[in-house]
Every structure is written in C-alpha cells, then in structure tokens.
C-alpha cells in the first residue's frame, strides 16, 4: 500500500476510515472514499495522466470537473470497458483499474510523441487538407492517422451492463445544486410545486464543495430531502434540452460502486423529464490562460487547485505560481497558502487588481506581480518553473524575464457561465463586455438561468437569484464585477513558443492555429470549429471556446459579439449508447406480436417470418427437410388435398352505420351497392395519388354492418386512413369503425378436400357449392365453436376462412388437425397465389403502382367517385410504357430469379444499361415443376411474346414474358 504523500493530514470531504486501493496504468495506489480518480492521483503525486490527441504531448489534470480536457481514462477492458471517462468525474471505488487513453505504451514514454517534434508539419486543417487530396493519397495516410487518431478503445463485445430509462414529470426542474440551485429548489419546493433537482456531482453543493467556507449546503440539502414534493437526483447530469421543456438527464446509478454494485440495479438510468419550467443553475466554467507551454502537467485551473485542497485535502503542488486576469484566483491563492502551499507569486495580468481578496492576499504578505504575465513554462513531464515578464499597456512583453521555480501553476482566465443548456433550449446569448462572457438572453421556452450561469459570481447573489427563480419571482441582476480588458493570449518570445500556446487542450488547438485559420479565410466561427477542431471532443471545448473565438475576433479585428459562438447542441456530456438504448435491446428491442396459435406453431417446429411486428409461420419443416422441400410439400398438399394456415394476422375492421355502404363506395375502387348480407367482395383501396394502398375482402354482415379485412402489414395504417377520412372530410357520414383484429382468429382451410372437411366439422353450415357459393359467408358452429366461415380464396383452390373468437383458436386448430390436413406457412401461400398471378401488397406494389399497371382496370367503377380516381385520369397514368405486371418464365426452368433483379430488353453490352423493369416475386413452383416469377416491366404484356434479359452477378438469365396466371387461368378449380 502506497502512502498518499500529497494528502493533508486532516480536512476535506473524504472518508479517511475507508481507504480504497486502485490502479492507474498498472501501478497500484490508495485513495479514500469521497475521492475522484483525479484527486486520488494527485494525492499520490501523479500529475502526468495522458497524452494529447494530436501531438501526444504530456498532459496533466487541468480541472476538477466536467470540463476536463486532458485526464481522459479508460476503465476496464473488453466488452465492459468504458472509454473516454474524465478522471475528474470518476468516483473512486475499491479495485478501480484505469488506463490513460491516447498513448502507448504509457504517458511516461509515448512512441507517438514524435508528433510533438514534427508538429509544425501538422498545422490547423491537417486532417481537412488530407481528406481533400486526391483519393489515391488517402490510403497512404490512413494507417498513420488511424493509429494516431481517436480517443480510447471501443468495447469489443455487447455491453454486459444494464441501463434503465425513466419518464418523469415536474413543475420545476432545477439543474445544478450549487448555492443558486439549492435556493431555487427550496423556494420552488416550499411553494408546493413538484420539483426535481438534478446535480452531476455527489453530494450536492456545487462550487460550495470546493470553497473554504464549505458549510450551509448540508442544511439546505437536508431541508430538501424533508419535502415530499422535491426529488433530488445526484450523480445526474442533464445533457439535453429539447422542445416543450423536455430534457434528458443521465443518472450514474452504480458507476461509483464498481464491482460492488448490486446486480439488480442498473449501471445508469436515462431520465426523460417533462418540466413546467426549468431553472438552470449550471454554474460557470473557469477558462485557462493562453501562454506558451500552458499545457505542462502541473498547470491547472485556479478553481480546481482550490477544490483539490479544500474538498479533497490534496495538495496539487508544494510551490505555486498563481496567474490570473481576474479576482477569483486570489481566493485560490489564499486557500492554498492557508494549507501550506508556498505561493511563489500571484501574477496578475491587470495593472491593478483591487478586490477584497486582493487586499487579503496583500495582508497575508503574498507576492503580487501586477501587470505581469506567465509567458512560458519550463519542465518536461511536470512544470518546474514559470517564466514571468512584465506587460506593456498594449499587452506586449516588456522588460526582462524571470523564472519562478514552482511545481504548480494555478491559472484563471475568467469564467464562462455554463449557458449550454440555455442555448439548447433555443435561448439567445448576449456578450457582456464587462464580464467578458456570454450570458443568457431570451429563451422561447420556460427556461431561466440563475447564479453563476447568469453571471452572478458571488454566493449571496447566487442564493438570491436562485430563490427568485425557484419561486418564479422576477429577479434582480446581481452586482457585476467588471473584468479588466486584457489580451486573450499572452505573446511568446519565440516562434516555437507561439506555436505552443494551447487554447483547446483536448484537440491541441493553439492560438497560432486559430490565427492561421483566420488568415486562410475560415472567418466564420462555425468554419473555424470544423477546420481546427476547436471545441470538439469529449469536453466540447468547455474551457477553450471563449478564448478561441476571442482570439479569432482579435485576428479579424472584430468584436467578440460580431464573431459570435458556435451552436450549443446536445449532449452537454457524452452519453453511452447503452444508456440511450436502455432496455430496448435483444428480445425487448421492439414489440413482438403473436397469434393465438403461436404456441402450436412453435411446438410443431415452424420457422417464423417477421411480418411487421408479427411472427408468422413461414413453413413447417419435417425432419431432414430443406426449406424448398417443405414448401413444395405444403404447396402440393393444398393443390392435391387440403392445407390449413393461420391467417389471424389479417386486419379486421367492423364498419357500422347507415352510411357504411356509401363509405365503402368512396374508399374502395369498386361498387358495394349490390352486396347483400351473406355475401363478400374483393376490394382495392388506393391512395389519393391513385397508387394501390391495400386490398382485402369485405363481407356484408347486415344492411348496416360490414366486416372489412386488410393485409397483415397494413392493418393499423388502413384503420387510421379510414378514420382520417371519416373524421376530417366526411364527418356527415354516419359510420363507426371498430378494430377487431385482436378479437378474432382466422384459419384458412384450402384445397380440393376442404369442402368435405368443413362438412365433417359442422352441422349447421351446408358446404354444398350451390348453397354456399364462392364469395359467400355463413355463420354457424365449426368443431362446436361459434364461427363465421367465408368462402374466399387466395390460393386458387376451394377455400374457406374460418373466423372464431381468439380464445377458441387452439380448439379449432386442434379439431382440424384430427383430419388429413397439412399446416402450411406464408411461403407456401406466396407460391400458391403467385401461381395464380394474384397480387401481393408490398411485393407487387410499392406505392408507385396503379390498378392499371396491374391490369386490374376492371376493378375501377366508372359510375362513382372514389379516392384516387381523379389521379388515374391523368394522361401519364395511361402511358402504355409504364411498368406493368407480367409473368416471367426463365428459359431454364430450374433457375429461380432473385426478387428485385433488374430486367433489360437486350443482353447486357457492357455499357451502362437502361433497365425496363424488375422482378417482384419469384418462386420454385412444385405444382408446375418449374420456376415462376412476377415482374413489373415497361410496356407490360404488350411485349409478349418476347424475351427479356436478367443480368445477375455471374451470368445473364433469359426469360419469356407471359400471362401472370400460370395455373388454372380460367379459375375452374376455384369455382368447382
């Protein structure tokens, strides 16, 4: 067990009674409960945590929070490996094993660091320019770039962790539990509103946790927990703000427990929150200062240094140079000083800092160098000294440079209010020159910022703003502490130094890169982002964005508001794909619908086909049978004896009312006036554009009641379509629709023996063809069960569809199975109907096919209007060269064309070809002993007899155009 040489003997919000062992890059260390990985590493004196993305420069911990660009680590490996986590956000647990990303073999010796020496060769836009080179060049660079680029390792197997999802509603959502957020949640809670308070950290407290006066927030939290109407979500980061106050938050439920996490709890939970109004108390993010080699490990944000010493009782250094352009870093200097860190100097870029804490620092005898800047750093894997020089009034360097030995540089370039979520809400931003920051302006949604995210940087103002926002009262703006107008980038003394003034640490974007991009014409901030990658990556430029665009503005001679910001988009924090998917994985990915006969199909070895969400038996292979053999056997059984098929998935709609017949007349192409009770009729339904939408049989139950069937895949769509016409266009029609798809099961009994079979199963339905003709239906008992029997056919054989209550389906099926029948699946049905040339919706139709294309002009009633009729009257619809339905017979009867194959009029010449059609259905027909196909071909049967050519991968197949009715074209079997 290693000692923690940089841990203070007392203090901090850590539990010293719970030491935790962990490893980093294979070395073992110890920290305490309450540590983050970053604070535990610092306690052990580990500053070098990784290498930068492009130049592979050594990098240390910059921040103490979500804005961290450098300390990016990978936890675990393989399928459960988690790439690209911020060490500043990873809570320590026993056995945690982390590695640096982006360096190999490790951050101490990284083979790719050669980039650092060659980095003049990889300027801004390098990747961009590389991509733009001739295609031939790419393969030369790709292996190099692939090896160098990318953060972390993608998991190599399915994610074994469990992720949940939760929908929540509240009157007030408060984001952030710092002083403003706590005050807002309390005020909203006291008003009786339903409140959710979400904070990315644990415990709540926000900036208070890192300040020396870390009290008070405990009480506020306790007060909130006592209120039933307030839900506090810790470890929960709100990542997205969408329309109508819909927000997404990610709760890290057990991440902090590591392997000790209880198995029944999810790793993370995605919250989908609908809020009446939103208080964004998201705080502010400190900005780095831009000077040469400002990325040396040991250089960190002043507020972070303060948080490490106060919250974690960790000394981030022994001798510090604090460099700042604002007052806030003085508090950090004082806290570090108080805990025994030697302050080599406070370097203040301003000629004169005058806040109360400046005075305190002076009183404490700290060395303050006003009007000075850190212009460079020394050291390799850890900062050894800060080079300091005086600045002229115009920001240029003056006088001599002195080196201040130190092992910590704590810097502050001011604070950027975290306006990300406000911006995502659609809110506009305004630039406040006094604060040197973008502040929230107006949101079209009920969103309001409070506290530091609104530019209020002192605790009292934060609490006051939070209270007002939580109570829904108008708030007075807090006092503004104007910042001095100092330069955004400290000049360097050498060209090499100029090139190493980092703005965006994660993407290695320097001030020089931004200046170069501006010179090359990338003057828009959106172009700058894409050209230099400024603000991309896992931290989304939380620290570097404002300095970056300020430097762009300076280079272009524009003001910062003129340059503007890039758009803030979700997510604020990266979200694992697993968390987005939640439990929508594996068998729960999408609903599955099963018929009442599903269990029987399963027990009898059916292979299932997905039809929409339905599982339908595709075929029932017997032992040793291939698919082709099983389908052939099932087809022949129907043609020669009898088969039964589960047709329960067909849509069934009860159409009821005095205007039902008129309604059918309007939505189907054919006429319904003469359809008497006890009879049924085939109908074709078109869209208003004249294209075939659906087909099915409708039975007249009584004068005012009809039962309409739809195809399986279109059941919901057709029901919605009919309701739409009734409700929106024809509210005067007295018609009610009720979906009965789920109430009834349908078994199709088909084949020459089916009449005899039906007769054996019923006493009260006479199947004799003269009393029960084709396209009639009868009500009675089948196998003792109340049933409606429809004599209709999709196979070309005598066929009955027996409809019973879904609860009776298994009894009916069992009764049928006591006779000589063969269960057949959808594939046999497809083959049987194709032999007859019957169309199948979704196969022969694709939304571009009219009834005329299908040679079904006879279905179009000329004496009435119907949906789609006018469109069919357009001249282009009658063009004989439209693609029309034909049959295809391959020259070689054994060849089965692939469905979707393209068709040519002439053999392929090798030049680009003009296709004249495509194969829509294609099968091996056991009945005919040869292959058959249906196709849509320009000119249709005008081409018959004629040969077409179907080019496949390895050969071209010749086929003859023919009548699509391959079998029993006169329908003698059907009517027999």
């Amino acid at each position, binding site marked *: 067990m290693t000692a923690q040489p940089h841990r203070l003997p007392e203090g901090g919000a850590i539990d010293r009674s719970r030491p935790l062992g962990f490893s980093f890059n294979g070395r073992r260390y110890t920290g305490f409960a309450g540590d983050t990985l970053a604070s535990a590493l610092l306690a052990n004196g580990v500053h070098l945590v990784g290498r930068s993305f492009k130049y592979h420069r050594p990098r240390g911990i910059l921040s103490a929070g979500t804005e961290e660009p450098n300390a990016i680590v990978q936890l675990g490996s393989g399928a459960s490996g988690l790439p690209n986590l911020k060490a500043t956000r990873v809570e320590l647990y026993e056995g945690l094993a982390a590695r640096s990303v982006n360096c190999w073999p490790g951050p101490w010796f990284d083979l790719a660091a050669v980039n650092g020496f060659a980095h003049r060769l990889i300027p801004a836009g390098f990747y961009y320019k590389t991509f733009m080179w001739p295609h031939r060049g790419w393969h030369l660079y790709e292996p190099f770039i692939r090896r160098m680029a990318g953060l972390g390792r993608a998991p190599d197997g399915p994610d074994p962790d469990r992720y*949940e*999802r*939760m*929908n*929540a*509603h509240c009157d007030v959502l408060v984001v952030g539990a710092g002083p403003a957020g706590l005050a807002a949640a309390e005020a909203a809670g006291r008003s009786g509103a*339903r409140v959710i308070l979400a904070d990315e950290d644990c415990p709540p407290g926000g900036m208070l946790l890192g300040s020396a006066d870390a009290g008070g927030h405990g009480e506020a939290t306790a007060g909130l927990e006592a209120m039933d109407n307030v839900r506090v979500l810790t470890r929960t980061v709100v990542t997205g703000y969408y329309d109508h106050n819909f927000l997404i938050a990610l709760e890290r439920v057990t991440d902090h427990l590591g392997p000790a996490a209880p198995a*029944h*709890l*999810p790793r993370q939970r995605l919250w*989908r929150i*609908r809020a009446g109004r939103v208080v964004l108390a998201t705080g502010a993010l400190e900005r780095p200062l831009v000077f040469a080699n400002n990325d040396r490990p040991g250089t960190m944000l002043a507020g972070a240094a303060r948080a490490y010493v106060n919250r974690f009782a960790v000394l981030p250094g022994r001798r510090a140079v604090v460099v700042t352009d604002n007052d806030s870093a003085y508090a950090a200097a004082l806290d570090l000083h108080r805990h025994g860190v030697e302050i080599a100097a406070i370097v203040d870029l301003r000629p004169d800092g005058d806040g109360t804490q400046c005075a305190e620092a002076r009183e404490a005898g700290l060395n303050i160098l006003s009007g000075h800047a850190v212009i460079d750093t020394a050291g390799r894997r850890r900062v050894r000294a800060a080079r300091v020089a005086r600045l002229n009034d115009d920001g240029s360097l003056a006088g001599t440079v002195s080196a201040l030995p130190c092992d910590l540089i704590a810097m502050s370039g001011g604070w950027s209010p975290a306006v990300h979520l406000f911006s995502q809400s659609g809110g506009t931003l305004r630039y406040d020159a006094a604060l040197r920051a973008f502040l929230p302006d107006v949101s079209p949604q009920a969103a309001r910022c409070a506290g530091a995210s609104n530019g209020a940087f002192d605790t009292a103002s934060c609490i006051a703003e939070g209270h007002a926002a939580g109570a829904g009262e108008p708030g007075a703006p807090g006092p503004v502490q104007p910042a001095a107008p100092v330069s955004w980038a400290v000049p360097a003394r050498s060209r090499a130094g100029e090139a190493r003034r980092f703005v965006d640490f994660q993407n290695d974007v320097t001030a020089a890169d931004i200046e170069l991009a501006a010179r090359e014409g990338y003057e828009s901030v959106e172009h700058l982002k894409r050209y230099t990658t400024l603000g991309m990556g896992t931290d989304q430029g939380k620290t570097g964005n404002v300095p970056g665009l300020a430097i762009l503005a300076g280079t272009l001679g524009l003001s910062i508001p003129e340059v503007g910001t890039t758009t803030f988009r979700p997510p604020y924090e990266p979200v694992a794909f697993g968390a987005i998917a939640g*439990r*929508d994985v594996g*068998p*729960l990915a*999408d*609903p*599955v*619908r*099963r*018929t*009442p006969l*599903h269990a029987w199909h399963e027990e009898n070895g059916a292979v299932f086909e997905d039809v929409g969400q*339905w599982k339908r038996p595709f075929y029932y292979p017997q032992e040793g049978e291939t698919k082709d053999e099983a389908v052939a056997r099932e087809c022949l059984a129907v043609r020669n004896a009898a088969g039964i098929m589960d047709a329960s998935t067909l849509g069934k709609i*009860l159409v*009821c*009312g*005095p205007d039902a017949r008129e309604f059918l007349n309007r939505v189907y192409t054919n006429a319904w006036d003469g359809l008497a009770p006890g009879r049924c009729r085939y109908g074709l339904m078109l869209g208003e554009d004249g294209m075939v939408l659906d087909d099915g049989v409708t039975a007249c139950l009584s004068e005012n009641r009809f039962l309409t069937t739809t195809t399986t895949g279109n059941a919901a769509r057709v029901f919605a379509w009919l309701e739409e016409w009734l409700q929106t266009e024809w509210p005067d029609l*007295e018609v*009610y*629709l*009720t979906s*009965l*798809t*789920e*109430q*009834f099961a349908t078994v199709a009994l088909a084949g020459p023996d089916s009449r005899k079979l039906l007769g054996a199963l019923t006493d009260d339905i006479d199947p004799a063809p003269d009393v029960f003709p084709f396209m009639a239906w009868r009500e009675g008992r089948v196998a003792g069960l109340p049933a409606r029997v429809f004599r209709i056919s999709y196979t070309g054989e005598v066929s009955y569809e027996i409809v019973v*209550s*879904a*609860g*009776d389906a298994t009894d009916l099926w069992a009764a049928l199975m006591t006779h000589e029948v063969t269960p057949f699946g959808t594939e046999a049905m497809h083959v049987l109907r194709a032999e007859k040339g019957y169309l199948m919706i979704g196969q022969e139709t694709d939304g571009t096919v009219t009834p005329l294309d299908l040679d079904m002009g006879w279905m179009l009633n000329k004496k009435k209007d119907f949906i789609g009729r006018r469109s069919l009257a357009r001249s282009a619809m009658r063009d004989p060269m439209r693609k029309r339905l034909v049959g295809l017979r391959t020259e070689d009867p054994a060849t089965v064309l692939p469905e979707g194959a393209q068709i040519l009029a002439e053999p392929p010449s090798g030049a680009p070809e003009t296709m004249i059609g495509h194969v829509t259905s294609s099968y091996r027909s056991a009945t005919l002993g040869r292959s058959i196909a249906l196709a849509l071909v320009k000119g249709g049967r005008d081409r018959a007899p004629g040969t077409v050519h179907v080019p496949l991968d390895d050969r071209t197949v010749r086929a003859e155009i023919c009548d699509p009715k391959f079998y029993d074209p006169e329908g003698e079997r059907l009517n027999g």
Partner: protein
Amino acid sequence: MAEPARGVEFRVCPPRGRIELRGDPGDGAFVEAASNALGLEPPPTPNRSRSWADTVILWLGPDAWLIEVPAEAEHAVARALEESLSDRHASIAVAGAGSVTWSLTGPRARDLLAKGMTLDLDPERFRAGCCARSLLAKVPVLLHRPGNDPLYELTVPRSYAEFARDWLEDAALEYADTR
C-alpha cells in the same frame, strides 16, 4: 427475518367480458338507451371510468367506450345493448378475447410503468377512476386506476401480451425487493 416485501406485484386478471361501444354522447336517446341496457351511463368525461356492481365503463374517446363485464355476461350484455340501441346509430362489438389485463400493485408500481410510459402518473393527477390509452414500451395499452388495490389495471392487445409480460418482468427486476 421476514421475507422482504416486493416493490411491485403484477398478475394476469382472469378473463373478462369486454364490449366496445361507439355512439354519439350528444344524442340523448343513445345515452338513455345505452344506460338502460347497462344500468350505468357511459362517462362523458374524457379519460374517466364509471363502475357499478360488476360493470365498469371506461372512456376511450369522445364517442367510444369500453364496457367491462364478467366473462359469462359478455354476450348477454352485448345483446341487451343491441336490442336497446336497435334504432340508434351505434356500434357494438364483443371484444373480450382481444386483450389481456394485468393488475399491478405495490409501492413501485408507478415507477415500473413510468419506465415505459410518458403519461403523468402522479397519484394526484391520475387518480382513482382515471383511465387512458397510451403506449407502454411501444405497445398500445389502456391504463386504468380502479382504486388503490390494485393500483392499476393494464390492458394490452392479446397479440402483445407475451411481449408485455416479458417487458414487465424485466423492468420489475430492479424492484424485486424494497430493502
């Protein structure tokens, strides 16, 4: 030590009779005829149920209701409605076999549903006597709060029942006990 209480209990209800009724609530004669047959007036208020003895009527839409009766009474009630409404424009469809109902109860029943539903299930808003059609994990459902025990009745179309059961069991893993 006692067995830990489960956070949520759910089970399939015995089969029940259901009738889908459609008609115009603005037509007094329709309402009167329906009420006569049912012994209860179809609730005119959106997303509310009404019950008396063995009969529950749930509002499905401005001109649609679901009538729940004991399974053995389903056809008799449907016939009574048909007779009573024979001269009105109305639609009566027996639907009992078309769906499956679960009862859910326990302190985490609401959380369980909230995992898959966007409805606001706040007990002050979705009170006893409330019902709503919505989606649960992409499955069309009818949720009813008959009272406090069971807390909820969840009706799903028959074809989705197995999937819905799998989903509920999976979602309930987290609430296996309340310790």
